[in-house]
């Protein structure tokens, strides 16, 4: 498994854990799938939990000043943000 696929898998598992999506819905997420504002489970507490779990599971540090609302708009945006943080 290549590094980017590991990040993709970790991110899907994390969203499944926090939003209770189940494996099927988590696996069906595409780059264009809407998150915040689209999934009713994705509230401000879920946003906060996602950020802290991303730090724990991806081994990154997230400066909250660099977190723009648009990274939660789609799964593709969140994945791109995660990859850029892991790449450092």
């Amino acid at each position: 498994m290549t590094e980017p696929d590991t990040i993709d898998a970790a991110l899907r598992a994390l969203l499944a854990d926090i939003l209770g999506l189940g494996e099927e819905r988590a696996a069906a997420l595409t780059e264009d799938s809407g998150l915040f504002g689209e999934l009713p489970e994705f509230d401000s507490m879920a946003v906060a939990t996602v950020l802290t779990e991303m730090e724990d599971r991806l081994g990154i540090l997230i400066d909250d000043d660099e977190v723009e609302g648009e990274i939660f708009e789609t799964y593709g945006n969140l994945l791109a943000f995660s990859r850029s943080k892991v790449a450092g």
Partner: protein
Amino acid sequence: MAEQLLHIAPPGPPRASVLVVPPLFEEANRSRRTLVLAMRALAAQGFAALLPDLPGQNESLATLESADLAQWQAALADVAAGIGGPLIVASVRGGALIDHRAKAAAWWRLAPVGGASLLRTLLRARVAADREAGRDSSIERLQEAAQSEALLLAGNRLSPAMLAELGSAEAQPVEPLRSVALGAGGLAGTPLWLRAEPDEDAVLAAAIAADIIAWSEQCGVT
């Protein structure tokens, strides 16, 4: 003020007692049903299982703003002192930050978490909610305010003392201790304490009970 103590008794005289220390804040609500399922499984195997309300949590009449970690540590020590016979303290997540002052024959911790991580999530939730409502907000400014005033974080009004303690709290060494995580090498189950909507996990509940019983037997508490 006496707090509620959920007590699930075994059919006969207990082999030993298990004092469950719940996660903190909203994580306690998300986990409670599964923890009580685990307590029922423990009772079916001959253990008395107890789950206290921390002052200011669950159905407590105390305000959360009047609580802090030192008070919760003392409250748990009092509950433990009132339990006769051998005792195992079983803590989940942030419960591990307040379980070390209780006197016990053994400790068991599931997915322990540092106070700083819990606090950061609460601060982030407040900032996300503020921004959603069009209010300017930042973690730095909230942390500065926290030195002199209580903060309302995701529905929890926390005192400056509580905020300061959380910022630096780590699980303390206790002996004998088994610390277990979820997933590979740990227990099978979902981390319900992270979950945005309530759920339950009967598989995890059974795994929790079996792991506590195995650890208790290994420690000679049978």
